[in-house]
C-alpha cells in the first residue's frame, strides 16, 4: 500500500538518522492515515504500544531488543480512530490531552491516563539559518518560505495559539498535516523557518532561534492502558514511562522532551 | 523515363541484391516465389525501405544513394503504392481516403472530393459506399478503393502488390482493365497470377532468393526464366474463352470442360505439365482432347517444352524421354488432352 507506514519495526539502525534516509522515512508518515493496524501482540504474550509518531525514535530506543513489545506509530488522532475501529493494542500514548480524552470518551481506553512528558514548540530553521531568522516576528517576512503545522493537528493548533497571543501574522507557504514532514522540509532547506516541536527539531538536526514567546505553549504526552485491568507485563511497560527512573522516562528526556 | 535500380536492400536475415535493373515505362510484372524479395523491391522504389548501398534513380534523379548521402523520402517521390493489405485509413470515409493524396498535394476539400468521386466511379466502387468507412466494405471493394487512392495523386510510378488477391472474381476484369490503362507511367505489378502477366505485363522481372534472375520482355523471360519456379509459373497456359456452365469455348472454337461453373468471358489457366500428348486419340476420362499442330520443341535438360498450335495455343511440358518416344518433330499433328480438374477458370 502506498506509503501506508505505521512503522512497526523493532530494530532500526542508528544510521537511519542520516538526513536523506530519514527524510524518506518520516515524510512517508504523511500517508499514515490510509493504513490500518493489526495489533495482535496481546494474544501471544507480547505488548502492543500505540504511540504518537513524534515518539518514533524514543520508542525504538526504549524497546530495542525487546522482542515482546511491538510499537506502532501514527498521528495521535489516527491512532484514536483506529482504536475506536477495533484495532488491538495494549497501551496508547498520545501527543496531547484532547486525543486521549477522545479515546476515553469513546470507550477505547479504560486505563487512567498519566502525563509523562511535555513538548515545546520552537522556531526552527535549516542548519546555518540561511534566511537569517532572528525571532518569531520573522515568520511574517514575505521573502521567506515559512511552514507551519495545519491547525487540524496538535502542533498546528499550538502554533496558532502561540502566534495569536504574540500577534504575529505568519505568512505561511504551507500548512503541513504532519510535524515530521514539516521538520524534514525545513532540514532540506526547502523552507526557511517553521514552528516544530523541540524534539523534532532535534531529531531532524535543525537550528533553533530563541523565541521566548513560545515557552508557555506546550503539549502534554499521555500514556494509558487500553484495558482497565492491564496484564502485569503491560503495566510494566507503562511504569517504565511513569516512574522517573524508568528507561522510558530517561529516553524521553534524552530526546529533548520536557519533564511534566 | 526509367527507374534504375542498382543496389542492395538489407532485411533481417537476408538481403535483396539488384544489379543494374532498368525498369522501362509501361507495366512490368515482378514475379517470384514467396519470400524472394518482390515486395522489398517495391518498397525500396517507393522509399519505404532504404538501400544499404547502391543507387536508385527515378527519371534520371537519384532518390536513394547512400554513398552520396541522398535519400528522397517516400512522400516526395511520386511513387504510389497499392498495398496487399490495402491499408485504408479507418478513421476516414471512403471518399476522403481517395481524396487524401490530393489534399496533401494542396487541393481544397471540395475539389479533392470531386476528383475522388470521379476515380471511385472509374474503379467501380458502389456509390452507396462512398460515405462509409472502409471497415464496412467487402475485401474487393476495399481493394478498389486502395487502387483509386493510390492513383489519385497521379504518381509517376505505381506499385501494385498482389492486386487481385482479395478481389472477388466479378471485379477482376474491370480492375485489370483499370491497371492496364493506368495513368502512371510505370506500373510495377507484384504478382502471383499468371493471368495478370498474360494480360497486363509487357516486361517481366523474375526474383529468386533475393536476386534478379531474369528480366526483359515477356517472350524473352519466358524463353529464359532463370529459375525453376518461374519456369513453371511462366509455362502456365492462359486461354481466353466464353463460359457457359461447365463448358468454356475458346476463341479457336475448342470446347473445354471445366470443374466449376462460370458464365461470360473468362480465362482458363492450366500448368504446362498438365497437358498430355498422345500419338492417337486418347480414350478414357480425359474428355478435353483435341488435335494440335506441333510447332516447336524446346529441350531444357530433362524437360521438353512443346509449343502447340491448332484451335488453341498451348505449351506442354513432357519429359525428354517421352518426347523421344513420341518422336516429336515440328509439323507433326498430335493429340493433346487435359483433365477438367487441372483447369482453373479466372474471370
Amino acid at each position, binding site marked *: 500500500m*502506498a*506509503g501506508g507506514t505505521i512503522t512497526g519495526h523493532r530494530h532500526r539502525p542508528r544510521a537511519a538518522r542520516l538526513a*536523506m534516509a530519514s*527524510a*524518506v522515512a518520516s*515524510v*512517508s508518515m*504523511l*500517508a499514515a*492515515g490510509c493504513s490500518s493496524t493489526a495489533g495482535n501482540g496481546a494474544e501471544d504474550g507480547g505488548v502492543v504500544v500505540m504511540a504518537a509518531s513524534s515518539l518514533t525514535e524514543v520508542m525504538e530506543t526504549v524497546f530495542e531488543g525487546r522482542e515482546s513489545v511491538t510499537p506502532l506509530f501514527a*498521528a495521535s*488522532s489516527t491512532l484514536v480512530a483506529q482504536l475506536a475501529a477495533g484495532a488491538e493494542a495494549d497501551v496508547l500514548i498520545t501527543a496531547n490531552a484532547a486525543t486521549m480524552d477522545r479515546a476515553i470518551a469513546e470507550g477505547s481506553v479504560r486505563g487512567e491516563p498519566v502525563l509523562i512528558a511535555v513538548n515545546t514548540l520552537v522556531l526552527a530553521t535549516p542548519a546555518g539559518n540561511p534566511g537569517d531568522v532572528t525571532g518569531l516576528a520573522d515568520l511574517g517576512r514575505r521573502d521567506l*518560505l515559512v*511552514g507551519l503545522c*495545519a491547525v*487540524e*493537528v496538535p502542533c498546528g493548533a499550538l502554533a496558532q495559539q502561540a502566534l495569536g497571543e504574540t500577534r504575529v501574522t505568519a505568512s*505561511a*507557504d*504551507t*500548512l*503541513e*498535516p504532519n510535524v515530521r*514532514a514539516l521538520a524534514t*522540509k525545513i532540514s*532540506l*532547506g*526547502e*523552507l526557511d523557518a517553521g514552528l516544530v516541536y523541540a524534539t523534532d527539531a532535534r531529531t531532524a538536526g535543525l537550528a533553533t532561534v530563541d523565541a521566548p514567546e513560545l515557552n508557555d505553549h506546550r503539549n502534554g504526552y499521555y500514556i494509558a492502558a487500553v484495558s482497565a485491568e492491564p496484564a502485569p507485563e503491560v503495566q510494566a511497560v507503562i511504569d517504565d514511562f511513569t516512574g522517573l527512573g524508568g528507561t522510558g522516562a530517561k529516553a524521553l528526556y534524552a530526546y529533548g522532551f520536557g519533564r511534566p | 523515363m526509367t527507374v534504375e535500380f542498382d543496389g542492395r536492400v538489407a532485411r533481417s536475415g537476408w538481403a535483396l541484391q539488384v544489379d543494374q535493373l532498368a525498369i522501362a515505362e509501361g507495366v512490368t510484372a515482378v514475379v517470384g516465389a514467396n519470400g524472394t524479395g518482390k515486395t522489398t523491391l517495391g518498397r525500396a522504389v*517507393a*522509399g*519505404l525501405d532504404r538501400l544499404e548501398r547502391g543507387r536508385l534513380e527515378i527519371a534520371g534523379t537519384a532518390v536513394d544513394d547512400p554513398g552520396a548521402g541522398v535519400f528522397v*523520402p*517516400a*512522400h*516526395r517521390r*511520386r*511513387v*504510389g*503504392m497499392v*498495398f496487399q*493489405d490495402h*491499408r*485504408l*485509413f*479507418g*478513421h*476516414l470515409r471512403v471518399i476522403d481516403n481517395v481524396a*487524401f*493524396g490530393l*489534399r*496533401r*498535394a494542396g487541393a481544397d476539400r471540395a475539389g479533392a472530393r470531386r476528383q475522388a468521386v470521379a476515380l471511385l466511379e472509374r474503379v467501380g466502387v458502389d456509390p452507396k459506399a462512398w460515405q462509409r468507412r472502409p471497415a464496412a466494405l467487402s475485401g474487393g471493394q476495399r481493394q478498389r478503393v486502395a487502387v483509386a*487512392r*493510390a492513383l*489519385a*495523386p497521379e*504518381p509517376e510510378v505505381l506499385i501494385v502488390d498482389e492486386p487481385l488477391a482479395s478481389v472477388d472474381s466479378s471485379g477482376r476484369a474491370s480492375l485489370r482493365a483499370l491497371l492496364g490503362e493506368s495513368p502512371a507511367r510505370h506500373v510495377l505489378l507484384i504478382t502471383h497470377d499468371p493471368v495478370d502477366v498474360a494480360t497486363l505485363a509487357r516486361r517481366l522481372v523474375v526474383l529468386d532468393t533475393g536476386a534478379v534472375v531474369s528480366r526483359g520482355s515477356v517472350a524473352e523471360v519466358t524463353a529464359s526464366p532463370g529459375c525453376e519456379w518461374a519456369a513453371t509459373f511462366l509455362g502456365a497456359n492462359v486461354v481466353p474463352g466464353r463460359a457457359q456452365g461447365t463448358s468454356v469455348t475458346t476463341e479457336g472454337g475448342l470446347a473445354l470442360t471445366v470443374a466449376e461453373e462460370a458464365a461470360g468471358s473468362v480465362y482458363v489457366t492450366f500448368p504446362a505439365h498438365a497437358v498430355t500428348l498422345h500419338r492417337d486419340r486418347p480414350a478414357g476420362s480425359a474428355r478435353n482432347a483435341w488435335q494440335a499442330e506441333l510447332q516447336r520443341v524446346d529441350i531444357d535438360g530433362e524437360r521438353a517444352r512443346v509449343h502447340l498450335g491448332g484451335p488453341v495455343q498451348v505449351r506442354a511440358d513432357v519429359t525428354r524421354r517421352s518426347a523421344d518416344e513420341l518422336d516429336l518433330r515440328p509439323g507433326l499433328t498430335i493429340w493433346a488432352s487435359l483433365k477438367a480438374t487441372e483447369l482453373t477458370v479466372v474471370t
Partner: protein
Amino acid sequence: MSSPTRVRVDPGTEPRPASQLPAAVTWVGFVALGLLLLPVVGLLQRAPWSALPSILGESEVLEALRVSLIVSLAATGACIVLGLPLAFVLARRRLWFPRIVRAVVMLPMVLPPVVAGTALLFALGRRGLVGQWLEEWFGVSLPFTTAGSVVAAAFVALPFFVVTVEAALRQAGDELDEAAATLGAGAWATLAHVTLPTIRPALAAGTALAWARALGEFGATLTFAGNFPGRTRTLPLETYLALERNPEAAVAISLVLMAVALAVLVTLRDRWMPR
C-alpha cells in the same frame, strides 16, 4: 430501420455463448468485486446526505475544488504535451535498453506517492539537483506553489497517459503511416491526419485516466508542494485535513471525488474502451 427483416435485439436478451467457466472462478470473481464495492458502500452509508449541500458549499471546499480543477487540468495538459512525444519515442524509436526505459516510465505508477514527492523535492526543490539552478538562473522555485502541485500531479499521472497511448501506437503499427507517405504526406501531415486520428480513442482514454489520477493525487502533491488554501490545497488534501476536524466533511468531499471518477470511467468504458 423500417426494414421488416431487421429484428431489434434487446441487449439484455441477447443469447450468450455457453460458458465454459468453472463455478469457482465465477465465485472468486464476485468476491473480488465485493471487495472493490465494499468501501464504496461504506462511504455511502456514512454519507451525511442532508448536510451535503452545506458542506460542499463551504468556502474551503469550493476553494479546494477550484485549486483541484486548475491543478488537475494543467497537469493533464502537461501530460499530453510531454506524454505524446514520449509515447511515440517508446513505440517507434529503437531504444538502448527498452525494458529499463519502459520501467522508468512506469515507475511513478508503483512508487508510493509520498516517495515520489520526496524525490521531486530532491530533484526540483529549492536545494534540489536541478531546482537550485532553476532558482539561481530563473528565480523559479516550485515547492509550495500551484505550479509545484501541477508538477507533482503531472509526474504521477504521466505514466497513465503514456502507457495507454503507447499501447495504441504499437497496436496501430506503422502500416498506415507508410501508406500516407506514399500518398505524399510528410511526417507532420501523417501525424496530424493519420496517426493521431487513428489512436483517438486511446488519446481520449489516456487523457481521462491521467486527469482522474491527477485529480485524486495526494501524497506527491502534499510532499512536494505542501498544503496552503487557495494555492496548493486540493480536494484530496482538504479531505485528509477534514478527517481530523470533521469526518463528515471528509466523507462528503470523498463522495464528490468518487462521483467524478466514476463518471469519467463509465463514460470511458462506454465510448472509447474496446468491449
